[in-house]
């Protein structure tokens, strides 16, 4: 039992956790349980990043997705009185009909990629991936980074305008 085997075992555990919680997100009925499964999915994702050595990505996954974003979902979902809204029991049939061929094609594409493609290989041992990522973001990828920040700013101003009370 070498280091590779241990890595493999950890990956299988985390992967199972991820897949089970993703399935839960789709199939569970109560919206609160859905959001809990979704949270679990995000945590599993962060754990996989951590296991792969992408520490900064794991930290950001936790702090941005698992906390900042999901907390707003939770706030909205918990404050809506679900008893008063029409309960929907089954599975969305027409949506499933439309989505399944697309999903099948996507699955085929991804299987092709996995079977024929090459896996990304680590270029070299990265000592401090926080620093390296920061340098990359502010040098080679400065323009897309700034564009993303402006898009977010526009979205924020839009949200403030929409949420503003009429005087």
């Amino acid at each position: 039992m070498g280091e590779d085997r241990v890595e493999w075992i950890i990956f299988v555990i985390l992967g199972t956790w991820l897949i089970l919680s993703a399935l839960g997100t789709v199939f569970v009925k109560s919206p609160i349980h859905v959001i809990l499964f979704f949270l679990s999915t995000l945590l599993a994702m962060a754990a996989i990043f951590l296991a792969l050595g992408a520490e900064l990505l794991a930290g950001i996954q936790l702090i941005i997705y698992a906390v900042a974003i999901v907390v707003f979902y939770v706030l909205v979902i918990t404050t809506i009185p679900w008893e008063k809204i029409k309960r929907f029991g089954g599975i969305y049939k027409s949506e499933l009909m439309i989505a399944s061929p697309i999903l099948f094609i996507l699955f085929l594409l991804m299987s092709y990629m996995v079977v024929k493609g090459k896996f990304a290989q680590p270029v070299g041992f990265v000592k401090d991936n926080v620093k390296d990522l920061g340098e990359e973001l502010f040098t080679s990828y400065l323009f897309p980074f700034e564009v993303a920040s402006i898009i977010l700013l526009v979205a924020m101003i839009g949200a403030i305008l929409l949420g503003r009370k009429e005087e």
Partner: protein
Amino acid sequence: MESLLYSLLFTLVKVLIVFLTALGVGAYLTWFERKLAGHIQNRLGPTVVGPFGLLQPIADAIKLATKETVIPRGADKPVYYMAIIMALVPSILLLAVIPWGPGFMVNGKYIEPIIADVNIALLLAFALGSLSVYGTIFSGWASNSKYAFIGSLRKAAVVIAYEVVLGFSVLGVILLAGTFSTVGIVEAQIQKGVWFIVYQPVAFILYLYCMLAESGRVPFDIQEAEAELVTGYNVEYGGMKFGAFPLAEWYVNVIALSAIAVVLFFGGWDGPKILGPLSPYFWFVAKTFALVFFTIWLHWTLPRFQAKDITEIAWKILLPIAILNVIITAVVVYIF
């Protein structure tokens, strides 16, 4: 393979030590808090069980554990139970990134008294600190009680606001130290010979505010507000299930956040060697305890803010100050 087994074993031992100490100290802080509150309010505090009432936490634990389990009608049972776990786990996990002392050699093996020395330790600490908000929100929601739910919504608003300020307030320290790692930050302070509170007093005050807000301590304890909400989000929990929430939020969280404050601003285990090889641990624990003491002292001295004031202070006053602090620090670090 051998080294892997060893490191697993070491980690397990470290986890056990930290876990048991944290829960034990957390339980005894209840005694300490009641004693302190008693003396602040000119009374004696617990005196009956054992000398100085020292056995009071054990008596409380037995009382809580033997109480009848009552679950409110219409409560969502799985979420109701899960909420306890969601409140406890992040607070305890926070302790994983705290370095209690410098590394040392035993039988040619380098041992660090920290469970997880990752280079995103601080990010992880803040992520876990805010993950504990789910325990509060879901416990309030699952109880099917309006008092509990209002309490949990207030807590959510507070955590969202103060998490942002917290992130910005410590950026100054990170700029000075050049790393996210808790061990690295302490080593940077020892190397410079100056604790970061000297360079970053504003950041420390902001951090203190955020620490009080995140751990639901006075003056930011509106989610508990006994007078209006009858202690808020945990009102529908009974017995040991009730005991878990204050343990997580008021004690373990306060210990962990104080320890992180010591790492960030007070030089971690740095201090004169008065106890030989044990002095780093002594200094770390002493500094952490001083901050915990300060928090409890405030708790029994100050009145509480209104709900709307708390979030307004965070967004309109603290956040601009924090951002200004980061910009000034960045410019100064860049120039020198």
